[in-house]
């Protein structure tokens, strides 16, 4: 039993394993944050600002004497929430729109693809800035903005997949037997298109974290003092030349998190392509 498990692991691409390890660390960090972090992420200590790395403060302290390590651990929760919410919203809306467009066809299809083309013409961050200047800054508005500019990829993917699946004989057969659009969508198309769409989601996850931390870095995401990685770097940036630690470690963590999702996506694709 253990032997076959070992050969199975050995056959998996290295990138997949590395990605899984990094993301497991992230999930554990989010779940066990109160146990892992040595200090309260919000507790200020103005007598202990810009402390170097030590046993008490593994990554040092920031300009308000807050423990950087604890803030990073709690920040994991925000990053995972960003990834989950944005992917859920954009994937659900995009997939549904793309599949319906392909199944219904005609003017509906043209209209949907037109809207997608137009969203696609907006540079992602510029569209997010436009939406955020409409709604005002904030965590959920930021997530909405990122979701909107992530939708087109899913619409196009779902549209292409559905068009291909529609020509499959079993879909033809179901249609001949009188199955309606919704039944075909749910029973035949949705289940078969799930794989590629899931792969696309893992590939998008890294860019969601990058976009969210960029927007927070620009001061348009979470409220000040929130232990979110991008916002932490935005604070740390003001103290460049005094102390690099407040910007060094949050950035390193973002890199590792994005790398984790990118490796996972790459690994999953390798397994499927085999």
């Amino acid at each position, binding site marked *: 039993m253990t032997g076959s498990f070992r050969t199975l692991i050995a056959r998996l691409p290295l990138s997949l394993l590395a990605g899984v390890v990094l993301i497991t660390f992230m999930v554990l960090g989010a779940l066990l944050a109160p146990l892992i972090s040595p200090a309260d992420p919000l507790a200020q200590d103005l007598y202990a600002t810009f402390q170097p790395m030590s046993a008490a403060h593994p990554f040092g302290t920031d300009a308000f004497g807050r423990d950087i390590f604890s803030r990073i651990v709690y920040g994991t929760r925000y990053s995972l929430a960003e990834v989950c919410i944005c992917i859920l919203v954009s994937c659900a809306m995009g997939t549904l729109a793309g599949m319906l467009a392909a199944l219904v066809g005609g003017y509906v299809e043209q209209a949907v693809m037109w809207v997608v083309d*137009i969203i696609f013409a907006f540079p992602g961050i510029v569209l997010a800035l436009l939406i955020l200047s409409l709604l005002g800054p904030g965590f959920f508005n930021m997530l909405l903005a990122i979701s909107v500019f992530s939708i087109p990829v899913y619409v196009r993917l779902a549209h292409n997949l559905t068009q291909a699946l529609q020509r499959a004989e079993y879909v033809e057969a179901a249609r001949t037997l009188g199955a309606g659009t919704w039944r075909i969508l749910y029973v035949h198309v949705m289940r078969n298109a799930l794989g590629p769409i899931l792969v696309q989601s893992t590939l998008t996850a890294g860019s969601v974290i990058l976009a969210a931390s960029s927007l927070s870095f620009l001061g348009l995401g979470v409220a000040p003092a929130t232990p979110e990685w991008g916002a932490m*770097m935005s604070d740390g940036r003001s103290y460049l030349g005094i102390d690099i630690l407040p910007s060094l470690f949050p950035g390193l963590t*973002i890199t590792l998190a994005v790398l984790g999702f990118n490796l996972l996506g790459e690994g999953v694709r390798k397994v499927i392509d085999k």
Partner: protein
Amino acid sequence: MNARLINRVLMLPVVMVVVSFAVFVAVRHLPGDPARMLAGTAATQDTVDAVHHSLGLDRPALRQYGTFMRGALVGDLGISIESRQPVGQEIAHHFPYTLLLGLSAYALALCFGIPGGLAAAMFEDGIWDRIFMGMTIVLASVPNFWFALLLMELFSVRLGLLPLMGAHSWSSLLMPSLTLALMPMALIGRMTRASMLAVLSRDYIRTARARGVGLMRLCLRHALPNALPPVVTVIGMNLGSVIGGAVVTETVFGWPGLGHLMIEAVRWRDYPVIEGVTLVAVLSVILVNLVADIVISRIDPQARHS
């Protein structure tokens, strides 16, 4: 020029009208009264009403859009609320900086990506291929604002070699363009490798190899021209994210480009500027993608002969 290209050129004005209308409607629904902001907080209601009238804000929405579009066509995008300068002038002032930054970033990305990807594909699964693939996936994962701060810490704070911020001399360009180049470096590198591998497995390459064509000539003369079109497509499609990256990069380095202008405008709720910069950004993305398609139809041996 094939039919698809002509179609896209004809669609360009239609897309721009739709985009400008969407931006116009969005901006008109923003909270806050631009007339009051323009008049200042101390202004009386009469003054605000007068500004309201002079901006044409008391006319029907469609008439306003008509005026806006007529202005936009001749480059008149309204007056910035913050600087009181015409938006067109502001954009004209900041645009060259973004163009310079973008071009030098793409130049760096091409210098790294094409030879790197080519070498990785020539020696697939070799040591360079592994290092290169690892490098590109890390490059694509690094947040550019973090990379920027690390560069600033090393070259400006510690070593004192490069200017920290602003655009004072040519050396100011080095760190921002390297920062902005990270993402396209990774993308162009991976795309070149994938595209080369696909071409190298074709029959005509095997034939050429059987005829005794050397590896260098085989790759550069026979394979590369056929591998480039997808790379050009990726460059065009990636422009949007490079403009997004420019927003962050310019803000970190205080580089006076369009991204910097946009962030300031969002911060001050300077709606005419937001409107103008968005339109310019969208137009650039559409135009560059169009140019990429035209370039492909020129350089792609298959498209040229068909």
